[in-house]
């Protein structure tokens, strides 16, 4: 019942957010960035924070999927497919968000045509393009046989599966074993690619000597850890809602909760190490950014959102007796995911607001040369549409993930050939006894 209500409300809010947010896209496409509130002192804003939020979710859930497909960890198997779906959908949303942010949106291909091998951003883009291809191919091979079988389903889904399976027809166990080998290989290649590309996102910030709050060797590591935390938390929540995990995969959810707790604590430790060392060293720009974060006008983003909601409450839940209760665990995971939006905002914005030249904002009078930033309506709208799209794609993906029960139930009785061969997986599961 709760699950039904949750699913429903996700669909409704997804569609509503997406449609309302289209107004923002219209403004963005016709007026460019005129109605954005960032400027030349704070050149990156909400969209970049949303970008690193989603890209972290993607890298994190991909790395968790590799626990199933590379290391064969049974415990996490029920979320294997879901984690690849999450990785694909969040990557798409991340790219959309960063695409809205660039001044000439239709020049994105310049990164490939005019490469600069010294640029951390260029490396990051090349690596996530590789990662995107790899992810798509891996997901395809993972689902191939089930999709081929599901072409026999009645209704609109069959059409989608027909389009998605191309000319592939094989449903034999041999072909399935072949698929699995490819999946394992791709997933193994994917691990270093995901580590490099998400470490690269951290490095993009870490290499900026001009912003001392970013300029830390810990940044790539912090990004990887926080990817695992937020990605793991999102998976926990998604498994609970979309796979009826609260009833069927309690153990997986509880185990994911403990994994998330572990990396969350490690991530917090790293963050505080960074903050304490910087605070002790007293590098002016870095200290100013930290002060802004903990005691600036948006102090509550740090204390209430990031620390309270995103860290303390989930840690208490996940280390209390409630850690064995799938409802509480998925609730805690939800708080972590939401809390991470605050983390991402605090990574991007305070370091920029500090500015580089004292007195610049009073030297000229312009809203673009200002050291305060709050996203404009257009920025919020575009973000809303991306979040709405995320919810919708997620719901759609969940509907389309070929589910064993459905195929077994509806295809088998009419298909004598399938009867002898098909050993389909239950919803969410990926491997069967062969």
């Amino acid at each position, binding site marked *: 019942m709760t699950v039904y209500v949750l699913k429903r409300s996700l669909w409704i809010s997804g569609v509503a957010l997406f449609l309302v947010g289209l107004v923002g896209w219209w403004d963005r496409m016709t007026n460019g960035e005129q109605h954005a509130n960032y400027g030349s002192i704070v*050149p990156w804003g909400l969209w970049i924070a949303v970008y690193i939020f989603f890209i972290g979710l993607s890298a994190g859930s991909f790395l968790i999927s590799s626990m199933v497909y590379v290391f064969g960890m049974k415990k996490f198997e029920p979320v294997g497919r879901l984690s690849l779906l999450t990785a694909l959908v969040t990557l798409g949303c991340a790219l959309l968000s960063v695409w809205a942010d660039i001044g000439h949106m239709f020049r994105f291909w*310049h990164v490939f*045509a005019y490469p600069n091998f010294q640029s951390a951003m260029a490396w990051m883009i090349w690596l996530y393009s590789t990662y995107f291809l790899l992810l798509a191919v891996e997901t395809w091979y993972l689902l191939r046989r089930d999709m081929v079988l599901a072409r026999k389903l009645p209704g609109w889904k069959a059409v989608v599966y027909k389009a998605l399976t191309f000319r592939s027809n094989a449903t034999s166990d041999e072909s399935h074993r072949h698929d699995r080998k490819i999946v394992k290989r791709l997933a193994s290649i994917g691990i270093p690619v995901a580590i490099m590309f998400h470490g690269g996102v951290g490095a993009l910030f870490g290499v900026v000597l001009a912003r001392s709050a970013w300029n830390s060797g810990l940044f790539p590591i912090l990004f990887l850890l926080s990817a695992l935390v937020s990605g793991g938390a999102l998976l926990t929540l998604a498994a609970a809602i979309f796979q009826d995990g609260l009833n069927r995969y309690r153990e997986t959810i509880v185990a994911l909760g403990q994994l998330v707790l572990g990396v969350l604590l490690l991530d917090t430790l790293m963050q505080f190490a960074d903050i304490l060392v910087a605070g002790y060293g007293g590098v002016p720009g870095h200290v100013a950014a930290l002060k802004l974060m903990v005691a600036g006008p948006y102090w509550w983003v740090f204390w209430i959102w990031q620390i309270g909601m995103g860290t303390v409450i989930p840690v208490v839940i996940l280390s209390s007796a409630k850690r064995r209760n799938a409802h509480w665990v998925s609730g805690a995971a939800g708080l972590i995911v939401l809390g991470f939006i605050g983390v991402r905002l605090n990574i991007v914005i305070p370091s920029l607001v500090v500015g580089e030249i004292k007195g610049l904002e009073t030297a000229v009078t312009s809203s673009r040369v200002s050291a305060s930033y709050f996203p404009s309506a257009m920025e919020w709208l575009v973000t809303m549409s991306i979040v709405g799209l995320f919810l919708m794609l997620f719901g759609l993906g969940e509907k389309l993930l070929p589910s064993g029960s459905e195929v077994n139930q509806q295809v088998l009785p009419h298909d004598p050939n399938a009867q002898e061969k098909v050993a389909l997986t239950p919803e969410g599961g990926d491997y069967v006894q062969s």
Partner: protein
Amino acid sequence: MNEPVDVWIGQSPSLIAEDDPLTFDGDSLVSRRNLIRALTGSGALALAGAIAGGGVLDLLLAQPARAVGTKYRYGMVIDTRRCVGCKACVVACKQENKTPPGVYYNVVVEDTRENAQDRPLWLTKPCFHCENPPCVKVCPVSATYKREQDGIVVIDYDRCIGCRYCITACPYSARYFDFGDEYPFTANGQAWANVPSPEYDQFRKHAEGISPVGNVRKCTFCLHLQDANGQYDKEAGRWPACAKTCTGKAIHFGDFNDPNSEVSQLLLEKRSIRLKEELGTEPNVYYLI
């Protein structure tokens, strides 16, 4: 014969077979040690690869610290003791380059005074055209670069994608994003609308969706005033607008490669500083204090 998995039973069946290629050596449950070993192995490999790759690339691609052999090395010596803070240079720059609101190739920053009776300190700040420009290094599309002939850091408007990474990387806030904003008198339909900017000798108009709107912009030392040989001429008025207009004669412009130039002589005679030396950017703009 394979048994179809009964999905209707309440518990999930064993999903990983004993001979599953996805598990280690027939062991259906991976031991923790194996997992950790494999994880650290691939992680370490990736990290080592990235670090080694980055290091090698850096060695291969790093620019020489000093642009030895360039024909000219243009720069400025700005005498803070002569600056009266009139900001004529800011206006002259705006007029010359027709920059839109929010885009300033040159600003005059006032240093905060601790006591009201302290003498004010004004800091005229163009782009420093660093010898090691961090902005150039970070650009993902090589749209911004340091010109070989004279060390001026420029932006290729047709290549720039407008990601603004260079703005974050410049330690001196010398870069501004063109949001497409207009002054009331340059707005569409006004007398000054569509007056092109002479910068880079490209005479671009300012309109939504067309470069330089959506690009990052910066001071060019008014390089459109150079002659075919890349030389400026102060007498003929082909001189960076800010230096030409400076009422207190505080902005000195010239070629540091020429030992007899005014700027080279000033550096020899006077005590000068550069901003944020610790970053290793080696600015080509010096301040006399």
